[in-house]
């Protein structure tokens, strides 16, 4: 491997077209506002999980981190909010207690790639992870790694160049390790978290080999799709002798929300993420792995569950609105629970209609996923809509690239065991891809790299 990691494109900095505006935002958009400041007592519904915001007032999101060049990280407006900088110039700090791309307000675009590690050498893997870590620090600052146009005639460009001059575009790159990484190939077996195991088979699974398995996942999110793709493409390139690409999904629209974002819609036309996790307490209790886990290296990390969910949107589009409401347990335009009138009204699962049946059917998606009906279990959803053209039998190939973060994969497993069995939505969706990954905590500073503790 020669030049992939060599140079930042210093010309970009010098001519003022640099992609680094010199300021980084907190890992998770410090807005100075708490989420209660913009929304009142909230109850929000969502596609999966039905997490609810904590009633406790949330503190400003994010942890204070140190920027790439050592300066303290300044707060900046969250995505979608008017501010002095455009999304093209905005950066999220890469170094910090937690990895960026989890609590970070969902950007508009996703490229999710899963790699197979092909080397059997732990030191080659170590070099790859160290190179990736340094490279991600550069990309998320809006910088290239390696010259786009090397001076020497016979030199192969280090950076592929398509993101040149585009800015960081809020890029975050998040890395996770599948259970297979701990199978003994790299001496990691003793570091395997007890919670990290392949997901069990669920009722109604329709998994396909081309969207399952793999060793390492990389989630790149940005406000521009080309910037996200550039990061993934170049990471794949610098890993070429060490890891191969296994499966990938490109998401084109966020399908979840954070505290200061309006609730987006999934491809079924329903709001998704109304009840997503937003509060500090929920992040501490439901998302971040605590110091009490069996593997100290995971403290501050999380577990990522990825499910590529194909939606049968043509048949969904022929379903009458009353049934669509009953499937979700919510109204389509407002997103209100069927027992309320406004999106953030708390659903009343006990309310019954004149016929004596629950107003929100017991097998409606929101009823099955709500934390009230799942012993308080919540997950952070961070999914994206996707399309992959036309499928092999002539249908639109589209759906939701479901991504959730939780402190234990069991949270997802418990919910999906119930949903897979009973959810009325199953008539219109197929889970075709799947993966579970241990997402290590954030890196402390340059010189730290993903998996460093696992090579000791």
């Amino acid at each position, binding site marked *: 491997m*020669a030049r992939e990691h060599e140079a930042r494109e210093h010309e970009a900095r010098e001519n003022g077209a640099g992609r680094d505006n010199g300021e980084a935002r907190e890992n998770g958009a410090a807005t100075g506002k708490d989420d209660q400041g913009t929304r009142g007592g909230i109850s929000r519904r969502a596609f999966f999980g039905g997490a609810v915001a904590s009633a406790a007032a949330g503190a400003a999101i994010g942890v204070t981190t140190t920027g790439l060049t050592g300066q303290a990280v300044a707060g900046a407006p969250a995505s979608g909010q008017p501010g002095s900088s455009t999304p093209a110039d905005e950066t999220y700090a890469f170094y910090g207690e937690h990895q960026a791309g989890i609590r970070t307000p969902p950007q508009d675009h996703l490229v999710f790639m899963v790699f197979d590690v092909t080397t059997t050498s732990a030191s080659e893997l170590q070099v790859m992870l160290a190179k990736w870590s340094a490279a991600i620090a550069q990309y998320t600052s809006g910088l290239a790694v390696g010259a786009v146009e090397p001076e020497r005639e016979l030199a192969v460009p280090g950076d592929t160049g398509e993101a040149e001059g585009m800015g960081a575009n809020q890029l975050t790159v998040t890395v996770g390790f599948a259970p297979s990484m701990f199978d003994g190939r790299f001496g990691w077996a003793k570091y395997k978290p007890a919670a990290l195991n392949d997901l069990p088979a669920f009722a109604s699974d329709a998994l396909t080999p081309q969207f399952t398995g793999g060793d390492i996942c990389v989630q790149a999110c940005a406000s521009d799709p080309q910037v996200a793709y550039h990061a993934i493409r170049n990471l794949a390139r610098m890993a070429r002798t060490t890891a191969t690409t296994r499966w990938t999904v490109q998401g084109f629209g966020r399908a979840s929300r954070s505290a200061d974002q309006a609730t987006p819609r999934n491809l079924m036309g329903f709001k998704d993420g109304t009840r997503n996790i937003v509060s500090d307490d929920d992040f501490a209790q439901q998302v971040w792995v605590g110091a009490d886990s069996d593997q100290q290296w995971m403290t501050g990390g999380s577990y990522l569950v990825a499910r590529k969910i194909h939606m049968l949107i043509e048949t969904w589009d022929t379903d009458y609105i009353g049934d669509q409401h009953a499937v979700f347990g919510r109204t389509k335009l407002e997103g209100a629970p069927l027992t309320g009138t406004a999106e953030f009204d708390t659903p009343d699962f006990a309310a019954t209609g004149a016929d004596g049946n629950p107003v929100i059917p017991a097998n409606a998606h929101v009823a099955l996923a709500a934390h009230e009906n799942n012993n308080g279990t919540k997950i952070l959803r961070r999914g994206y809509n996707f399309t992959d053209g036309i499928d092999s039998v002539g249908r639109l190939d589209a759906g939701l690239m479901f991504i959730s973060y939780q402190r234990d994969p069991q949270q997802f497993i418990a919910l999906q065991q119930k949903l897979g069995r009973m959810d009325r939505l199953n008539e219109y969706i197929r889970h075709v891809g799947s993966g579970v990954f241990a997402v290590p905590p954030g890196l402390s500073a340059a010189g730290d790299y993903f998996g460093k503790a696992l090579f000791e």
Partner: protein
Amino acid sequence: MTPSRTSPARSRATLFALTGLAAASMLLAGCSSPASTAGSTTAAADGAAPVSNGAAQVKVTLTGNDCTTDYSSAPSGPVTFEITNTDAAGLSEVELMSDKRILGERENIVAGLQASSFTVTLTGGTYQLNCPGATTENSDFTVIGDATTAPSDVQGQLAEGTVGYGTYVEGQASNLVDAVATLDAAVQAGDVTAAQAAYAAARPFYERIEPVAESFADLDPEIDARVADVEPGTEWTGFHPIEKDIFETGAITDSTKALSTKLVADIAQLQTLTTGLTYKPEELANGASSLLEEVQSSKITGEEEAYSHIDLVDFVANVEGSEQAFEFLKPALTTIDPDLTSSISAEFTSVDAMLATYKDSAAPGGYKLYDEALRTSDAPKLTQAIQALQAPLAQISEKVATA
């Protein structure tokens, strides 16, 4: 590659499309100078790097965006550069250059990993230490002592390698002449079965030296054009229309025989053209890489041998040709960049092992037929193995360039 029949007539095109190399002087490294006694450290004069264990010791530090050295000069003789990356996310490589040539380098010096070093033997003169991406990328490094113009080991090895490669090409061309004669005999005799076997036996000799053959822009399309490459109104000649007749149609006609006669003549012409050719090291390097491009662009898709489906035979031949070119550069490359060299060797070993699993002595050419089922199941795996090989292989051209 897609040879065109409409290329303007010209003699041998620049091999492998190599253009624009600036001439560089022959300021050379590698002549041995007496080393100081092992184990001792000698205070150097004039602020030059101290000599320890027989080599001047220079420390290079990558930090922030900067690349700094503790000494900017050394006495002539072996010089060791020890490189440490403390926290430079954008820097990972240090090269010692003489004009535009790389004399020694280290890559993958990533923040957080261990220090790395390389040693080169230098004669008096001014060199450049290059840290790609640093605030100051190039800084002069002065070696105090006698300059010399005698060729270094590396230059000698490269020259030897190019001569060796020339002999290899001539050998392949000679075998190709014989193999095409066998094919022609079968075709003229109307023996379809024998022609099929002879066709599969002949193809590898061409595929191994394809970048050289393609440099003859007028001749290559006459020999190796696929039907889709032929301009309307132009005659389709060479291997592939014969392939179509003997594998798809299964009938040898007068037209087949005429095609075969012409192929014999064209291959004889190719042998004449390739005899006595000389090559530059970077041409070997680019040729090695372009053979792997061939694999990815036309073999992996099954386009090359659309009728016989012996694409894996061509695939293996392309890889063999690439490996040969690399082997001729290897002695010099081992000095210039030992890590990269061993990485490429390991990738060739792994690709060779993968290809060996497709051997089938009953199939024409000795490899499984690359039919649709095999392509569907195995193409992604083959692509990734070739990409893993080509990524490091593409880096060697600039390292062996003699300009």
